[in-house]
């Protein structure tokens, strides 16, 4: 019996790796920094290319059907998966096939397997909350920064004794055979790009933030409103390539932002009533069948302006005055909008460089590069080291899933 496989990151890619390895009878330790699995996909609302809710997760032999809702992925109840939410990898030593991995765990205030989500603690104290009805593990979360008078009562009265307010952080070293990097991406927060006013001028948001506004499970119940005052949005301007294709930030193309933006433009135009959408772009990159989003956006009346935003000003009533250079007309245009949405670059997770260096991998613009470029094996990062999903560069959900399966395939091929 060999040591378990370590999967770092429980987003779409990492969860798929763990589930597939588990089915193949291989033990997996799935480490996730945050309290719930799902990664960036948790905040997507609708995912392209199928436009159904992001919650979908693949079915398999033990979960028959083509796909299952995310909360039914039952990751916590699979015999071969050791789920470690609230944990981080702090050190890796040893040699390929025999790694020693040190994991730092945040205090485990709630035992996920014991929590029944009965809601008793949530009713007693504001320190307990549910990240999402679809969260995985299906368990409440405790915020130690917000204890109140009901907190200890909740601990006492929890029917399953799932709460332990005295929980302490701890470290543990595990023996690991293979490491799968599935740490995902980070949406760039363009605070340094003064021309857009992000973080300073109200009602300037990123696409991921727009997804949360459009989500019916979100604060506004899916109504398209201005964050500054909750008033309905009538005009939206979207800007592509914010921080991508830009030598000062990221020289690469983030690949999925065009589709992502037009998906939102179409939801706004087709399902959220009267708002108008304009998109400022350099090239519209709706590759392959995603061209459909571009066709539909044009049919729905989305306005496309080839050019760049040069200035954003806050006008009265928190409206935004935006100056755009139109390269086809060779003119400056003025727009007055309620919401400016920045299609911000997908960038590597902040601590990616450390992991790449520690494992002796090569990097492509901060993402993990394949070990042997010539072989075109994109998921093989090194000896007993694999990568999948957006840790290897911008990727769609289906690409992340396919890569995750390729990782498992390669691990099994190495062991057969």
């Amino acid at each position: 019996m060999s040591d378990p496989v370590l999967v770092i990151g429980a987003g779409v890619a990492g969860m798929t790796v763990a589930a597939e390895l588990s089915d193949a009878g291989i033990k997996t330790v799935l480490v996730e920094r945050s309290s719930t699995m799902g990664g960036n996909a948790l905040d997507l609302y609708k995912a392209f290319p199928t436009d159904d809710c992001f919650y979908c997760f693949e079915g398999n032999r033990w979960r028959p059907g083509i796909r299952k809702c995310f909360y039914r992925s039952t990751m916590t109840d699979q015999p071969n998966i050791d789920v470690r939410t609230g944990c981080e990898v702090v050190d890796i030593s040893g040699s390929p096939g025999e790694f020693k991995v040190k994991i730092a765990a945040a205090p485990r205030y709630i035992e996920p397997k014991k929590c029944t989500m009965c809601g008793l603690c949530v009713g007693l104290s504001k320190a307990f909350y549910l990240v999402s009805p679809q969260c995985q593990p299906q368990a409440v979360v405790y915020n130690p920064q917000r204890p109140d008078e009901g907190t200890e009562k909740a601990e006492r009265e929890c029917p399953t004794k799932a709460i332990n307010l005295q929980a302490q952080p701890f470290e543990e070293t595990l023996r690991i055979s293979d490491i799968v990097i599935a740490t995902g991406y980070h949406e760039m927060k363009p605070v340094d790009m003064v021309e857009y006013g992000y973080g300073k001028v109200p009602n300037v948001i990123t696409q991921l933030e727009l997804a949360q506004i459009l989500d019916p499970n979100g604060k506004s119940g899916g109504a398209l409103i201005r964050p500054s005052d909750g008033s309905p949005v009538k005009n939206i301007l979207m800007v592509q390539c914010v921080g991508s294709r830009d030598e000062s930030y990221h020289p690469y193309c983030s690949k999925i932002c065009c589709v992502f933006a037009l998906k939102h433009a179409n939801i706004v135009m087709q399902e959220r009533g009267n708002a108008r959408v304009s998109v400022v772009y350099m090239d519209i990159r709706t590759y392959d069948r995603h061209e459909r989003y571009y066709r539909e956006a044009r049919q729905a009346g989305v306005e496309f302006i080839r050019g760049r935003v040069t200035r954003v000003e806050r006008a009265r009533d928190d409206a935004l005055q935006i100056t755009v250079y139109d390269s086809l007309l060779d003119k400056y245009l003025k727009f007055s909008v309620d919401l400016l949405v920045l299609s911000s670059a997908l960038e590597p997770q902040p601590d990616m460089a450390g992991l790449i260096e520690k494992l002796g991998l090569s990097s492509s613009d901060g993402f993990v590069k394949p070990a042997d470029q010539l072989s075109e094996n994109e998921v093989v990062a090194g000896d007993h080291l694999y990568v999948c999903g957006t840790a290897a560069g911008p990727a769609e959900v289906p690409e992340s899933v396919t890569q995750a399966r390729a990782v498992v395939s390669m691990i099994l091929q190495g062991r057969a």
Partner: protein
Amino acid sequence: MIAVTTDKSAALLCTCGKTLRLDYELLKRETQETNLAAVVAIHDLVCQEDGLAQIESLIDDYGGRLVIAACTSQKIRPRIDQYLRARGKDSSQIQYVNIREQSAWVHSDQDEASKKSAAMIHGVLACSALSVPLTFEHKEVPAHVTVIGGGISGIESALSLSRLGYNVSLIELSEQLGGHVISLPLVTPTGRSGREVLSGRLQELETSERISVMTGARVKFVEGEMGNFTVHYVPTKGGEEKKFKTSAIVLAMGFQEFKPTALEEYRYGKNPNVVTQFELSRMLSEENLSRPSDGQPIREIIMVQCVGSRSEDYKRDCSKLCCTFAIDNALETMKRVPDAKVRIIYMDIRVPFENEIVYKESREKGVDYIRGRVSMVWEKEGRTWVRFYDSLLDRYFETSPDLLVLSSAILPAEGVTELSQSLGFAVEYDGHVKELYGKLRRNETRRRGVVAVGAITRPQFVFEAVTDAQAAALMLHNELQNGKIETFARGAVLKADDCVGCSLCAQQCPRGVPLMVEQTDAEAKSEAQKILFKATIDTLNCHACGICQSLCPSAATQLNFLSNDQLWSEIEGTLDGAGPDYPITVCFYCEECAVSTIDIVGTRRMGYPASTRLIPVPCSGRVSIIDILKAFEHGASTVMVAACEKDRCHIGGTGNEIAQIQVDVAREILDAIGWQGERVEMFRMFSAEPERFTRAVNEMVKRAQTLGPTPVHLGTAGKWMEASP
């Protein structure tokens, strides 16, 4: 009236740590009064260690039939299954009732919620009484897979499968392996030629003992099913048709480049100096870059993007790869002819991720990019002339290049439709092989045991085709398990004696599982009555959606965990007490999108009326007209079917559409006999939008209150039968 049975179930009611506002004394009493429960136990935490132990002892003591009324089975079932499996116990006769998310959490009136919970427990007990244990079965199939297509994705498939322990037959139409890739002078981002990218793999292919390669062979058709396919093929040079057995098929036929002869403005096929991008790739990789008309050196090239792509007349979508191909070829050309002038006329340059950096490099090296379109091409005094529009400068230009290169659309290889007829996979609107589900199941096709990889599914870069092949090998490995398949026989079981040979199941099964088999020794009273073909279903290949069951006219095929009698008993039991004084809405919900939506409605405590009875089905396609009418017969006032979104059926792809037809026909029948068709309605669920369910259920409850039950029954359910002489 419930049919008398001797097979009572144990009933276990969970209080969720005494947090559920339900009258457990009432639940216990009513459950006992059904006469269907051998014992009624109440536990505070069924999902914890102590509760799991009680489940085990109830299974031991009462023969396996157990009804658990607790939270959503979606959460506890996997844990209970694991617990019992680890102890060698059979969990296949456990049935679940959701009294938390579907009752206590959504109804503020405790009496109403308790009444509803008791009715649903009653229904499930009636269903449980007819349950049969499912068996764990073993099946041996040949550990052999056939790969059709010897390009990069086919080669990688063969290698991956052979490393996983399978014998592989690799069939290639042409005389040479390597597909398009072998002719690429440069494969971005490797910086190397296609031949170099392939060389390691071709060597491994030669030395592998598990792979047999057949070039110059064409697959004509394939018979059979997963585990038992027969491939029929012919040599392309002519010769006898041959066949062999295989367990699964990998479609890896790749792409073909669109030949733009019909686009007359480009003069392709008439002017030899007008070539496609792939033809230029060949010239470059064969070191044969010269003007085709007279062999003179090339100094000036114009490349045109989106020839046939992004066009309503030819290919609506973007071909994805052509921008990168054009840039690669421009750079390769400039390596050979450093002072060459290359201009690329484009609409949008589409280069993903780091290909952007290669694009920028090409600009720095002097490749000229013109946003616009070519308006015409003509020949004058032995030269080729091109007129194009520059949309940034809003001007027309004329120039005379040595070579006009058309970045022509990428189309699926020929023969996809022909092969789909015998293999039963679905074809996408653009002629590529249709993936089972675009987000999570890209490599699988509609047909079980048939996967598709590489450019036959959509244009793909080389590294993507490689990943695809590796992933698809895993998907087949999951199915075939090295030829020793072990799985639960949970699905449709066909009684051949009852089959009338109508073939509806074979036509409508979303995964192509039922086969029509010729009856050679069929005994019949007369030749006229003899059934020539009958269906067979391998339960181990079944996806367990129940579509075949809802369509079968003779009840020959039924799910072994939800037979017709089981569902009808559940309908009857759950509607006990329904009638004019208590108008009830029955909701059949699929255990895919609908169950999730309903669970989330519960988790978010979104209230709705308690005069609702929820009955799960694996897929909405399991619900037949008869099931709907049975609900009315037993006193329901309205019936709703909650299913997945249009085109997004989770279990098989078409179940929700079949259900829609059943609902439509049921409405027509009700309308025809004057019983108001609006009693039945279909609703599409979406778990990110839980209010879809509450809106739907409120509407159907409103209708139930207005319409009341159908006139057939007098008083409460069933009494009309007793009342009529």
